[in-house]
């Protein structure tokens, strides 16, 4: 019996007001919420769940550094080894000339790195079944918590669908 109460359930709401009220009730009763999801970036101050550290910034910096290193190395190699051209006595390693290209390459690699990280990281919650996805989307607001928490707040909402997680 106790094990059954510790099982997680998903509550799916169609109305934002019902969802917000339930979140407030759970927070008021100090009941942890494992996962919540609205249809837009909600201000998560009412949420008590923990979140993982995001490595997005690190990815951006790393890819940017790779871009700078690779770009600069390539330009220096082309200018001094592969295709050295004497432009009226201008030095082969004309550093100021390289800045625009290196900057653009750094920006490009950083953006692409962060984009790929965003696309592929934390994709395990992506729903592949279209019918289930439709169901989730028709109920735009959902939260996941333990069954026992619902009993603590005497949860009763006719407009909500409750499924076992």
């Amino acid at each position, binding site marked *: 019996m106790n094990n059954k109460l510790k099982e997680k359930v998903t509550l799916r709401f169609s109305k934002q007001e019902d969802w917000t009220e339930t979140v407030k009730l759970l927070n008021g009763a100090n009941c942890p919420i494992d996962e919540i999801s609205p249809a*837009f970036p909600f201000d998560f101050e009412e949420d008590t769940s923990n979140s993982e550290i995001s490595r997005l910034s690190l990815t951006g910096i790393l890819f940017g550094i790779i871009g700078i290193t690779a770009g600069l190395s390539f330009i220096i190699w*082309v200018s001094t080894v592969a295709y050295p051209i004497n432009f009226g006595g201008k030095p082969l390693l004309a550093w100021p000339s390289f800045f625009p290209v290196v900057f653009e390459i750094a920006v490009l690699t950083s953006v692409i790195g962060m984009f790929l990280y965003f696309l592929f990281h934390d994709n395990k919650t992506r729903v592949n079944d279209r019918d289930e996805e439709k169901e989730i989307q028709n109920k735009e607001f959902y939260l996941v918590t333990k069954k026992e928490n619902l009993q603590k707040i005497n949860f009763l909402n006719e407009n909500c669908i409750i499924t076992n997680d």
Partner: protein
Amino acid sequence: MGKYNNILVSLQRDDRFGKVIKDLAGHLGKRPGRNWFVAFAISLLAFGVGVISTIYTLCEGIGIWGLNNTVNWGTSITGFVWWIGIGHAGTFISAVLLLFQQEWRSSINRAAEAMTIFAILCAAFFPVIHMGRPFIAFFTFPYPNTRNLWVNFNSPLLWDVFAISTYFIVSSIFFYIGLLPDINLLKNKLNNRVLNHFYHKISLKSFTSKRQWKTYKKLMLFLAGIATPLVLSVHSIVSMDFATSLIPGWHSTIFPPFFVAGAIFSGFAAVQILVIITRKTLEIEQYITLSHIDKMNKIILLTGCIVTLAYGIELFIDLQSENETLIYLISRKIRGEHALLWWSMIFCNVFLPQLLWYAKIRRNSIITFFISILILVGMWIERYLIVVPSLETSYIPARWKDYSPSITEIGLFIGTIGLFLVMYLLFIRLFPVVSIFENLQKNNSNE
């Protein structure tokens, strides 16, 4: 049933949440009205003129243009710089205003970002077609080849290749990321199977968890932070196509900030034109309000004043130099062969924006519309007056020669306008023009 009854809104969608979706996405998948078809037909006609001009140019060569040995850059480079400048407003609105936490940008950023991408595509056409042998345009990219040749990294023309390519890719990623939540929101709701299927295909990520939303918000901030220096760098690099040369009237250190300010000036004028028409035709005046038009007009006024200051500084620098060639160049512009164009430019870019000091004019969409059109005309003239007169009368008088654009060059420019409008008209039928999830978020936080 309401006007937008094609939206499959289920389960008590008469709430505020459902209303926003209906207002902003109700037209998607629905047959367009007569006005849209008329606009599309005109745009397609203009695009067709461009296609014919392009084919004629490719068959006969750029000798049919008005260019000559002296004036080797004409309306094609003018058009290139003009379109790149227009594209800058989109990135400014998406990135810079996001960093400054200006919430009002959420109603116009989608349209502005789309405008940026379409403007870059139109701009990229000109450097390719003006090469003479556009089929070897890929030579501009550094790759190992059997000719033992590499590109010249000291040349601003090559910096342009990297800058514009990067700008296009970053803007596209920014646009797609911004669109993703709305695609997810709508992909099972539209009563159009083709559009639903298309949305499913392009939705590479679902938003079903709080963690994903947090990562998303962080990503948007980082992208905004990275795209902001792009706004400054790209048009500065374009200006260096001129500033790093020795041509009189080009070799000026004021060009980078002058070009950037002018870009944002013309870009916002273009956004105003698009937004004023869109809000009227899609009946979304409550989302794109007169307040948005007012705020954009303030930015136009500010950048217009910067452009005016730049004109004055340029004149002062050239007159103070006591360089005969420069002084002759100025006299040709102010009271010589280019006087009509120069004074038209001054009227459009200097005097007309001063009307925007008055709040009543700033909040009048019709007056704003016409002022914005004239600003775009004035900015095109400005780019033309930078490119052509300096080349016509450079330091060697024996090489002086006049230039006038040929009918083919005019056709190419009209074609790019047609291409831009075609893409924009298709965009407003396929995607929500106003960001739905940002408006939902705004509504939620206003509770």
